[in-house]
């Protein structure tokens, strides 16, 4: 049975960490994720968790110590945002290729510059090819639920990959909303104990991690890592099903909001989906067949499944809270359009960059996008490859 409460996204993450009770947490302060290590430090100070906190001197060291700790056999977690994630970059790849199932809660914030502390997905999107699993949340409830499922996915023997649990900076991390929390005992039973097959400190065996490998070996290692990412798809769905049996809250790769009979759809990630849902509801009242596909899992990328879910739609706008400077749209736009093409999806598709550095997106902004989709459905795409929403002229 869930317990109703109200709290911010960061508090929800801290609550989940208390229930998971990880062994080690190395972390470094950075807005807007700073509260998470603060909350955990308080729990440690009050004896509410057995976690050992490592107050590292940088995020590079946070990820390095996390890698060492997880390799030694301890369930490990860290938290970061923005430039902190960027500083970890090199070690993200080491952790993933070492097949270490550690967890990182990412509070999404734009990368500098200009220096800005607000919501944007450029930090974790930049790390999308680092070999980490990535799961995104619309609100505090989802980030809580996603984190509770994280270790079950990452530690699965067919996966063994690190995982990022992402939420939008401030909009989700600091806004207080209603939430349904689970009791400790069923959650502890669901998460289970960490019992890796091999680790540095395992009795009766030694282990060497982080080899230099020559060309005859590297390619196979990378292919095996890609296989683990493919395997994760089934595991993510299995874990979600098990979680739903306990909590009643169901999750998949993505949420289809009034999408089944939609003629026009938006595809988006994160907190903006709440705004989009409001716009969809309004438009539906006026007879517009609007819908939303909200992406939850970005790595592994459920391209085929999303293309199928959009197969009946006349026109779709793929929304990126991230500029990738490729001149070919944002990361979600580029990847989803490629998947739609491969799956012979006939919908007209546009890519829109919005909400950079915390720029608000309103219900009216979203309605304007649906208006564009109606025109595009009749006349085809006449715009450039991708456009911006809410840009000041």
């Amino acid at each position: 049975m869930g317990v109703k409460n109200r709290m911010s996204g960061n508090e929800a993450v801290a609550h989940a960490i208390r229930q998971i009770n990880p062994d080690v947490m190395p972390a470094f302060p950075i807005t807007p994720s700073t509260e998470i290590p603060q909350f955990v430090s308080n729990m440690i100070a009050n004896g509410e968790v057995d976690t050992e906190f490592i107050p590292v001197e940088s995020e590079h060291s946070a990820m390095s110590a996390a890698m060492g700790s997880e390799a030694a056999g301890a369930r490990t977690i860290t938290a970061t945002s923005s430039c902190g994630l960027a500083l970890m970059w090199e070690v993200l790849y080491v952790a993933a290729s070492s097949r270490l199932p550690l967890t990182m809660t990412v509070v999404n914030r734009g990368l500098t510059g200009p220096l800005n502390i607000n919501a944007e997905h450029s930090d974790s999107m930049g790390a999308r090819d680092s070999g980490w699993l990535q799961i995104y949340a619309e609100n505090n409830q989802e980030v809580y639920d996603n984190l509770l499922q994280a270790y079950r996915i990452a530690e699965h023997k067919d996966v063994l990959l690190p995982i990022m649990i992402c939420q939008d900076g401030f909009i989700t991390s600091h806004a207080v909303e209603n939430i349904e929390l689970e009791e400790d005992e069923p959650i502890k039973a669901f998460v289970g104990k960490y019992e890796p097959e091999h680790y540095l400190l395992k009795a009766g065996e030694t282990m060497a991690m982080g080899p230099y490998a020559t060309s005859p070996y590297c390619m196979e290692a990378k292919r095996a890592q890609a296989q683990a990412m493919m395997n994760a798809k089934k595991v993510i769905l299995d874990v979600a099903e098990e979680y739903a049996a306990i909590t009643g809250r169901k999750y998949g790769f993505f949420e289809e909001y009034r999408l089944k009979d939609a003629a026009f759809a938006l595809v988006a990630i994160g907190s903006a989906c709440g705004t989009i849902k409001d716009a969809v509801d309004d438009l539906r009242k006026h007879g517009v067949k609007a819908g939303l596909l909200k992406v939850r899992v970005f790595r592994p990328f459920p391209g085929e499944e999303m293309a199928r879910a959009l197969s009946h739609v006349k026109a779709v706008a793929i929304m990126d809270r991230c500029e990738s400077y490729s001149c070919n749209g944002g990361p979600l736009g580029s990847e989803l359009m490629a998947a739609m093409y491969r799956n012979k999806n006939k919908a007209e598709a546009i890519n829109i960059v919005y909400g950079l550095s915390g720029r608000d997106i309103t219900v009216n902004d979203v309605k304007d996008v649906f208006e564009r989709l109606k025109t595009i459905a009749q006349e085809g795409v006449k715009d450039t490859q991708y456009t911006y929403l809410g840009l000041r002229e």
Partner: protein
Amino acid sequence: MENTFDFKEIQGREERLAPGHRMCAGCGGTIAVRNVLKALHPGDKAVIGNATGCLEVSTFMYPYTAYVDSYIHNAFENAGATLSGVETAYRVLKAQGKIKDNYKFITFGGDGGTYDIGLQSLSGAMERGHDMVYVCYDNGAYMNTGTQRSSATPMFADTTTTPSGKQSNGKPQYRKDLAAILAAHNIPYVGQTTFIGNMKDLYVKSEKAIYTQGAAFLNVMAPCPRGWRYDTPEIMNICKLAVETCYWPLFEVIGGKWILNYEPKNKLPIEDFLKSQGRFKHLFKPGNEYLIEAFQKEVDRRWEELRIRCGK
């Protein structure tokens, strides 16, 4: 702590760096690692960390490892942080009763990975007081990538990024005094050593570093025959001359107290150390005597400073 030194017993201990690795013949780094690991008491377990460098790429080339103990390499600049994570995990799992054995934590980095790119990670790990030893095998340049200068490179050395030439006398700057920087962290143990005689100094300091509770740092001058350009069998003479000229003094800082371990009766001129090494060949061209004088002056200044610190 009482340190006994039974040469035969110690050399008879199991090799914890197995033969068959790919390090160069006569490599000082290998000598450092073998001898530091000999200071682990038989029966004690260890996790060995390693910064990227010659040592890592030559001793753990997939699918072979030369390490008898568990080993972890992460990247170039984060050996300190990585082992701090391992050590923390050990304390947590030990407290939970999941681990019964006693482990020691020793990480090796070259001077590039320690003095330069890994300095922050090292400083953080030492300041936090993890029960671990960081061993720098200092060969005075980025040898793995082909002898580029580091902040450990001695002044005037000819390296591939400070080549001597018509307009250059080699590296323009004096070397960084890393042992003093680590001593300023007020950690329980700092030692500086190299290969002398029957390796007693290296053994004794390694044992103290490993078995001192808390963070410890060991700086080991480890000549590189390729980068320094000397005749490989000369390594022990070069180390002896580094100490006898006071270029590389042997000292410890224990609980904040500076201890000079050796004072030469007759301090030799720095030329004696420089002349057998190809990297200093240009200093011996006629007209360059002033460079050697400058080198000597800096060695003298640092030696006097060290003596004062050690209460001499």
